[in-house]
């Protein structure tokens, strides 16, 4: 998922955890409970946090923590079996079983729950995962909240039993096959002042929420995407988007701006010297997208592999570049 940047944390803490339990949460979602094999307490986390899961097939995927944040004995993540999966969700559904060990890094939080007078939570599909601990937190602090949760069908919507526990007339379940799309105008147009809006879900939902919220104060809307905003074509002006696989952050690289500068402006320290494509000290690994090599150092084979880039001068031929960063 692509996280709204608010906390920059480059310090990686890796844990080897055991899968304590797997649970089918809907017709396409399975949850994993993870813990230490010796019962040591897990690191603390707060609602909105996610972890990087390093899969045995070499992929790294980000998943929101969706269990009880006060329970230091286990973490819970939930994974949607996505037909368009690039290997992460398919692998977990097919291969991860109770008792197995998996490597994770984090937790980190780019989607923290800020203090507010009230909350409106909008979740689409598996986007319910970071919202669940937020419901817990808001309930515990006595902050009024409303949840609008949409999904393809009731059977596809995970954690309905958990959510019902909090329901006091403030939960709106919108299965699309019964109710159609979420009527965003209904929930957003009459929002009370000092309400923080938290939205997580597929890109079209977040795009629609952003459109409705255009006139809201800038700090009112908080959103987290499963995947970066989809751009179908490379922009005419040469700008492009970079996704950082380890954090899920998405950075825009403007026309005329170097990729290296954009990374530095976002708080990432990348070793470099010449900034001219000669020294090779800024070399980064590419996980996706098509680099547009402008350097003077990579060999033809290295260029054609598409697995590396010198960000001081090189750019991107595709709409998005995914870096192992």
């Amino acid at each position, binding site marked *: 998922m692509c996280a709204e940047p608010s906390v920059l944390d480059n310090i990686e803490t890796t844990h080897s955890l055991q899968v304590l339990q797997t649970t089918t949460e809907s017709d396409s979602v399975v949850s994993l409970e993870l813990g230490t094999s010796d019962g040591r307490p897990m690191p603390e986390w707060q609602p909105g946090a996610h972890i990087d899961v390093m899969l045995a097939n070499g992929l790294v995927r980000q998943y929101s923590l969706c269990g009880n944040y006060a329970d230091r004995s286990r973490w819970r993540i939930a994974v949607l079996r996505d037909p368009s999966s690039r290997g992460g969700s398919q692998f977990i559904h097919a291969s991860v079983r109770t008792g197995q060990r998996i490597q994770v890094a984090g937790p980190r939080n780019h989607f923290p729950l800020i203090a507010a007078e009230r909350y409106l939570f909008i979740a689409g599909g598996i986007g319910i995962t970071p919202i669940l601990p937020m419901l817990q937190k808001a309930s515990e602090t006595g902050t009024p909240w409303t949840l609008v949760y949409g999904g393809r069908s009731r059977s596809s919507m995970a954690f309905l039993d958990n959510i019902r526990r909090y329901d006091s007339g403030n939960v709106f379940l919108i299965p699309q096959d019964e109710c159609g799309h979420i009527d965003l105008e209904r929930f957003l147009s009459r929002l009370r002042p000092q309400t923080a809006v938290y939205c997580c879900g597929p890109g079209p939902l977040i795009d629609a929420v952003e459109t409705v919220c255009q006139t809201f104060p800038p700090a009112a809307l908080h959103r987290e995407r499963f995947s970066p905003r989809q751009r179908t074509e490379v922009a005419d002006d040469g700008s492009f988007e970079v996704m950082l696989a380890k954090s899920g952050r998405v950075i825009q690289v403007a026309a005329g701006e170097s990729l290296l500068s954009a990374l530095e402006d976002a708080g990432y320290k990348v070793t470099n010297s010449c900034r*001219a494509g*000669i*020294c090779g000290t800024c070399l980064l690994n590419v996980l996706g997208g098509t680099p547009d090599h402008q350097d*003077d*150092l*990579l060999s033809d084979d290295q260029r054609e592999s598409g697995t590396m880039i010198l960000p001081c001068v090189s750019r991107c031929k595709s709409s998005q570049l995914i870096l192992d960063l």
Partner: protein
Amino acid sequence: MLDVKKVRGGNGLDPIGAEVDEILASAEEAARVATKSFFDSFQTDPNPAALATWLETRVWREIDYVYLLNDQIRRYGMRLQRKHITLLAKQSFQEAEHYEDLGRVLENLGGTVPTAVPAQAQEWSDWLWDCMGRHHLAGIAAWYVSETSASGSFEPTFEGCGRHGYTDVVKCYKQIEIDEKFHTGLGRQILSTYTQTDEDRAEILRAMRGMQKIAWKTFTPENVAASMAARATPAAAAN
């Protein structure tokens, strides 16, 4: 790690490429051996004054590179593409930073930052400037070998200084190690791009072979001992 000897550019060095690479490898190895020898000696007598003396000639190299690069631009810059003028100037700026940073380290060790060529660096400096005066690419060829030879000194320096807790020296050379990739890559690219004639290649090989014989010398414990002895002699005479 990428190999900056394979930087893209022209093919002017192709006829002598094998010999150029052999000279570079030899210079790098000689500096590695000499540096290791110095730190082996330093291990038996870890006198900070010896380390300061060892650094002195290296500090001088940094500022001499600044002079050389600026003179290269002044004298021959209009033969170069604008981007190479910019990159030489950038290298010059980084060498000045190294002079400042290494100078601070040297002072912390009780040494004095040289403001004129130290006697032990005289041969090295003379060769560099002799090459610069002879041919528009020879000065670059000489510093290319000198900078490459310094690459051989990094690992023994990190190990030797780390062992004795001279973390500021290690930190300084870690940055220099990064920048040297740029400097040596640029040297190779300029030589490959602008070398055209057999005369050019002959001057380049002359400069490189000459520097190959000199570059490693200031890294040795014998060189440091000679410098310290030379410094001590006038004082002893005065007493």
